[in-house]
């Protein structure tokens, strides 16, 4: 198990990885005896472009240290908003990601399902706007930065 884990609790696991992500691994990791609900979100590369090209893959770039630090902040904010949560895992892919492959996975467990749904939605919404992560669209013969951009916002702003 790699990535930045809050080892004291073994309840928080964030990871920025150049290897394929396994939503199954996160779902199983988040499943706990006192938690009846696990909500998992997978974001995958779909055939939709901001630059008008027929994209074949995406290329994600970041600083692993800064991105994992910000992911832990997002997880901490989720814990303060939903103190009854069980385990929280957020993994984000970097490097080249093919069409259909998973770029981000969030898994949250809780005794009851409402908080797990709410927290999973907050986590992915906030990861998308708060974590430093740059995306290049790659097509046959070229590539360019995604044209849908916005400033990084704090984890409290979502």
């Amino acid at each position, binding site marked *: 198990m790699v990535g930045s884990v809050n080892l004291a609790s073994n309840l928080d696991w964030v990871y920025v990885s150049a290897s394929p992500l396994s939503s199954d691994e996160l779902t199983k990791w988040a499943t706990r005896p006192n938690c009846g609900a696990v909500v998992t979100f997978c974001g995958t590369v779909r055939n939709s472009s901001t630059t008008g090209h027929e994209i074949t893959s995406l290329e994600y770039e970041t600083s692993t240290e800064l991105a994992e630090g910000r992911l832990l902040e997002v997880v901490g904010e989720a814990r303060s908003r939903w103190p009854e949560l069980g385990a929280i895992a957020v993994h984000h892919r970097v490097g080249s990601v093919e069409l259909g492959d998973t770029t981000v996975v969030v898994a949250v467990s809780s005794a009851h399902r409402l908080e797990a749904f709410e927290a999973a939605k907050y986590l992915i919404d906030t990861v998308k706007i708060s974590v430093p992560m740059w995306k290049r669209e790659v097509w046959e013969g070229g590539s360019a*930065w995604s044209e*849908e951009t916005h400033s990084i916002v704090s984890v409290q702003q979502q």
Partner: protein
Amino acid sequence: MTKLLLLGPAREAAGVSHDVVDGNTVGVVLEGAVKRYGTDFERILAVSQIWLNGNAADPLDQVGPDDEVAVLPPISGG
């Protein structure tokens, strides 16, 4: 002398991801970076966030050789 981390379009405009620049404040370090990398970089710097050791920075923040100034252009989500 302070470490500089350049990300995404800032890295592309500068041509490097890591560098070392003279200066004892965040602002002076960034002026040195503009002088070194040119106007493409300057244009991206103008819309970027600046972090110092992982947190939002002010141009007047003091920096030394163990500090890292990061230039973070607008992001494109996950």
